[in-house]
């Protein structure tokens, strides 16, 4: 019997979906971690990016931050936090590691989006007597919206995939299905776990694409910013 059939059987078995080690519980943990981390990262990164982008300062910071973020292994950060005094506080180390991981894409994209706003429009708004605050709220944010959401979206997809690492030190999430399958040398279970994470990542991506279309403040307006 091939791996595909066995994976299908694993997924079709109701016993694998219930209980603490079941798919539903792990999926709940995974979603909870993803949403919490994403919200915290946005709450930290977006205001900073919007202010820096509006002032036109800190461009080097925004670019370097995403480079540094790429160079630091999330796994190493996670283990370092686990061994620190924070390690005893449940899923806090996981949350911090994932937040640090998600901030760079959100911040860099939002910053680039704010800077990418047509300077002429900003000048025009200023000429009309808008204050800095009004320019941010009525001109820059609506025009930068697509790029801001793109940053959040790519962070969300990466967080969904990376939350699996929480399973290595015994945390929650869908990664546990993969590590358990690996330990039992049950390929079907590993494939099932990987499949669940990949599907979840693609679903999240889809939801964000929809949100982007529905919520875009410039929807129905013709602008050059939509390239």
């Amino acid at each position, binding site marked *: 019997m091939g*791996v595909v059939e066995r994976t299908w059987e694993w997924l079709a078995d109701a016993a694998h979906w219930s209980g603490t080690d079941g798919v539903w519980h792990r999926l709940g943990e995974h979603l909870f971690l993803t949403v919490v981390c994403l919200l915290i990262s946005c709450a930290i990164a977006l205001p900073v990016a919007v202010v820096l982008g509006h002032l036109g300062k800190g461009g080097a910071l925004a670019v370097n931050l995403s*480079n540094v973020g*790429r*160079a*630091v*292994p*999330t*796994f*190493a*950060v996670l*283990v*370092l936090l*686990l*061994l620190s005094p924070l390690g005893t506080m449940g899923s806090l180390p996981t949350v911090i590691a994932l937040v640090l991981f998600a901030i760079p894409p959100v911040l860099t994209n939002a910053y680039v989006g704010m800077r*990418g706003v*047509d*300077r002429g429009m900003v000048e025009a708004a200023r000429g009309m007597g808008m204050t800095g605050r009004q320019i941010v709220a009525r001109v820059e944010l609506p025009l930068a919206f697509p790029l801001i959401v793109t940053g959040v979206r790519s962070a969300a*997809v990466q967080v*969904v*995939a*990376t939350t*699996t*690492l929480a*399973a*290595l*030190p015994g945390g929650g999430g869908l*990664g546990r299905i*993969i*590590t358990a*399958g*690996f330990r039992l040398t049950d*390929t079907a279970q*590993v*494939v099932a*776990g*990987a499949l669940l*994470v*990949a599907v979840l*990542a*693609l679903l999240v*991506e889809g939801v964000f694409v929809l949100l982007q279309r529905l919520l875009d403040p410039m929807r129905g307006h013709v602008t*050059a910013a939509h390239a």
Partner: protein
Amino acid sequence: MAGQNCLIANDWICGEYVRTRGQELTDATLQHVGITFASVAIGLLVAFPLALLARRWRGFAGPVLGATTILYTVPSLAMFSLLVPVFGLSAAVVVTGLVLYSLTILVRNILAGLAAVPEEAREAARGMGYGPVRLLFGVELPLAVPALMAGLRIATVSTVSLTTVGAIIGYGGLGNLIYEGMRSYFKAQVLTASVLCVALAVLADVGLLGVQRLLTPWARSGRRVKKRVLAKEAVA
């Protein structure tokens, strides 16, 4: 002895650890470098023809980009676990997984670089009697070097960092030390290996930047290009 004490006290920073486990650290670093180098080199060798094919036949581009993007959503943990039945417990598992990840970045950047070659340069080369092969290697590739190298740098840095996850099958370079350190609660080992890992990524990035400067003497430090981009931004 103070040095011994830091091992017993399980301090984060411990010179004695570095002294006594120097060989272990060197081996892990070499494995890390080897896995990263092999993955990026193979990734480049595979990405290049894929990008050329995607450019030649437009119909091929969608599926190639789509497939590489989907590959990127597969968690590294799952990727390595999935490849174990194929290769057994060996470094090939980690290298293959990392090659697949690097493809996403490399194919996109090679395509973008080739697409950014000015049509005039191509026309001029054709007018001078350049055939397709000479056009590619003599004109298009050199002009695509900046985008290509940008992709290569991102792919290399990500690969250095992702290699650590290979620790679950015992081929994670410095990740092995981090994983062991996590199990035995050995702080100095985790911190030393993590710092070395970040240092490797930074070194690789700086090294590749140097290679790019050497390869594109005409774009000296890219300052002129940057200025031009900024000017464009200001005009637009």
